[in-house]
């Protein structure tokens, strides 16, 4: 491990080849249990450029970015910073080397001032060892002048808008004299005017020779601000181009250009009457005027990029976070779903996106996990659980779903992701739902379990259940859905029928 000062000295000697690249990543591989997140990925960032990383959800952008910021260490491959090998061990390490990252969820301390946030750990001291607030505010003002930011150094961060917090984060990164700035979806919460201001600042930084890694889902931003872009797909590096050389369609093709090789067990089943009808559903600031219908036996795919509001719509339907306006009708009858209890009463079921956080009761056993939802209104007499009958049903369900476990008194924690997911699906099937909402039903589970879940969803549709399936995996959406609803920034941007749907068409609606 070479210290930053040595690196600086070597660099100054001018003896290093390829030093025109601020960052050069070669052959990086990163695996997580069950998934290869990055496979032989390369990437080069030139001084004084804005380099966008493009790709679908799960393409590997975030993993690469986290490697650059020292949050993950790669399993294989090298990262060169100004021509010298570095091994970053922590975000602090990255920062001290001159690589700063601005996270999507900002990391500022709300009850401290702007200046205190920027200079934390590096506060100027008076001779007596106290923090020199006057000097700190002066330094902040100077920094803001340089970046053309109009903010009071003494304002408390909690009083600032998201856009202004973003500016503080940027100023903080610049204050480390960073050479590389990594920005993850910096405009996701900004208004048009604020975006324009942010871009002015980014152009300024670029002029000063700073290299910026920019992650975005928004195509038009790419053409406005990025000089170059690299495309990733399924953890692999696809290519790098100058943004002036390509069109929007070229990029979309690069992002989705994969053959659908997996076979989906999709069956054409007779589609029945409308079961769920949603009209103008709105949750202020999250999603707006969402209207759609789902019929018995139909699988409605819900596509869109992360942050498009897909999961929020599902949570609103199920009463987890009820919508602020709009109406929901089941079998033509208007219903008010204000809580999951109410949703279950209406025979809805909701497999949530995050198995660990909102799905599993991790420290309890499989039986206890499976029976919890059905206990709302069945298998209970005078408060007592009819355990024998219920256990028998759970065991039958587990067998039908092929949950691989010696018995149901095993802790659910000890199952693989796929088997946990099957147990959770079992939890909902025991309630005999007529509307089933699946949010990322196959995320992070192995191929075998995935196929089994797909088969199961198909069977449910055949039995007349109305299915809403949210998925970030394009082949899954295309392979399983009868119809696809695409969302972008909280609005429905279009519906595609199974026959006409293609990866490119979905992507065009998802990334405007």
């Amino acid at each position, binding site marked *: 491990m070479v210290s930053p000062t040595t690196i600086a000295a070597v660099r100054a000697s001018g003896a290093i080849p390829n030093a025109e690249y601020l960052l050069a990543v070669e052959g990086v591989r990163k695996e997580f249990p069950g998934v290869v997140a990055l496979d032989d990925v390369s990437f080069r960032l030139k001084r004084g450029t804005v380099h966008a990383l493009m790709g679908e959800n799960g393409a590997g952008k975030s993993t690469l970015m986290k490697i650059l910021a020292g949050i993950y260490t790669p399993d294989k491959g090298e990262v060169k910073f100004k021509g010298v090998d570095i091994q970053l061990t922590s975000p602090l390490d990255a920062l001290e080397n001159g690589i700063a990252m601005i996270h999507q969820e900002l990391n500022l301390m709300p009850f401290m001032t702007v200046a205190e946030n920027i200079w934390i750990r590096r506060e100027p001291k008076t001779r007596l060892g106290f923090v020199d607030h006057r000097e700190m505010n002066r330094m902040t003002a100077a920094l803001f002048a340089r970046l053309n930011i109009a903010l009071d150094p003494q304002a408390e961060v909690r009083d600032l808008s998201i856009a202004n917090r973003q500016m503080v984060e940027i100023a903080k990164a610049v204050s480390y004299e960073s050479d590389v700035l990594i920005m993850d979806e910096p405009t996701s919460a900004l208004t048009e005017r604020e975006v324009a201001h942010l871009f002015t600042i980014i152009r300024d930084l670029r002029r000063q020779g700073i290299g910026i890694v920019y992650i975005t889902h928004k195509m038009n931003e790419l053409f406005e601000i990025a000089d170059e872009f690299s495309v990733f797909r399924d953890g692999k590096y696809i290519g790098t181009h100058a943004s002036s050389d390509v069109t929007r369609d070229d990029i979309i093709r690069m992002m989705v250009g994969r053959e659908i090789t997996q076979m989906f067990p999709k069956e054409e089943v007779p589609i029945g009457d409308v079961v769920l009808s949603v009209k103008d559903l709105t949750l202020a600031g999250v999603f707006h005027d969402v209207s759609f219908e789902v019929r018995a036996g139909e699988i409605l795919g819900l596509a869109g990029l992360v942050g498009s509001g897909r999961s929020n719509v599902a949570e609103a339907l199920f009463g*987890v976070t009820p919508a602020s306006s709009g109406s929901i009708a089941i079998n033509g009858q208007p219903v008010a779903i204000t809580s999951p*209890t109410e949703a279950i009463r209406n025979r809805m079921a909701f497999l949530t996106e995050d198995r660990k956080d909102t799905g599993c*009761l991790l*420290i309890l056993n499989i039986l206890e996990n499976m029976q919890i939802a059905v*206990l709302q209104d069945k298998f209970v007499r005078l408060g007592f659980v009819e355990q024998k009958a219920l256990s028998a049903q759970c065991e039958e369900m587990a067998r039908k779903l092929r949950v*691989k476990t010696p018995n149901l008194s095993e802790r659910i924690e000890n199952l693989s992701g796929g088997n946990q997911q099957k147990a959770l699906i079992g939890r909902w099937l025991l309630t005999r739902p007529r509307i089933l909402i699946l949010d990322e039903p196959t995320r992070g589970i192995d191929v075998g379990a995935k196929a089994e879940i797909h088969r199961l969803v198909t069977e449910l549709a055949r039995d007349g259940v109305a299915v809403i399936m949210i998925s970030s995996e394009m082949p899954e959406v295309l392979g399983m859905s009868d119809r696809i609803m695409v969302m972008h920034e909280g609005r429905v941007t279009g519906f595609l029928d199974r026959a006409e749907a293609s990866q490119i068409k979905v992507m065009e609606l998802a990334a405007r």
Partner: protein
Amino acid sequence: METNVAAGANPPLAKSARRIPPEFNIFLVLVGIALVYEVLGWIFVGQSFLMNSQRLTIMILQVAVIGIIAVGVTQVIITGGIDLSSGSVVGVTAMIAASVAQASTWPRALYPSLTDLPAIVPIGLGLGIGLLAGFINGQLIARTRIPPFIATLGMMVSARGLSKWYTKGQPVSGLTDQFNFIGTGIWPVVIFLVVALIFHIALRYTRYGKFTYAIGANVQAARVSGINVEAHLVKVYAIAGMLAGLAGVVTAARAQTAQAGMGVMYELDAIAATVIGGTSLTGGVGRITGTVIGTVILGVMTSGFTFLRVDAYYQEVVKGLIIIAAVVVDVYRQKGRKKV
């Protein structure tokens, strides 16, 4: 194991193996402590610790009240919460129940017109007051989302104040024999064991119990599974309050008088008994059987110290250390599990 289960092969699930219940370890700890005292007894005092039914009776009587509280506290801790108010609720219910349990023969009855009432009145009132205190705790926690620690800390201070204000600090004496009866002989122990049995059954075999564990295991998942978490928490805290109220009634009956300072620190003993009994402070784990054994361990420890003529102040020091040890063991148990 993942790969060799081919599609189509669908073996029936094996019957779940009968496992050693976790209480067994705690029971071994109890036996161990008792044996250590037995040996030390023969060495230092020259007599047996265990072969003395009078000592054992006193011991179990001393902790019965703590045990009643601990049954409620166990349920609260299983949901991932805490109840600091139980000791003060003991104080206030003892005072109020005693004030309507006075005999007409007593010259300074608080309510001269309300003397010689049947025992069911003060007992019912005591349970009701406890229930109300717990209900307020539950409402505060569920509706305002303030942490249980703070809500019950507030109740702890207020309820204690109330019990002092009620008679301006004067004790309430001259209780009817009928009321005092529930505190005599082995009755407090019987009450403790009946309460423990009821809630052992409730936690294991009723929907109330299943929901309690689910909330403690993962409150988000419990909510999505349709559990009305707020309403359930109110129930759990109300039950814990009612049991503290019962403990207050028993305490007053045993002492045949009520004082504003009754039950001070009982909440901590109850929490200690619960944690020693294997209930995890992170929620989702715990059993009444463990708590009963934990309560007895607490009793044996105190009784043993007295038996060995250990200085009373020093006893407290050691008791504190044992509680810490129990929590440390719990933390390691949790960690060990994560590694699997």
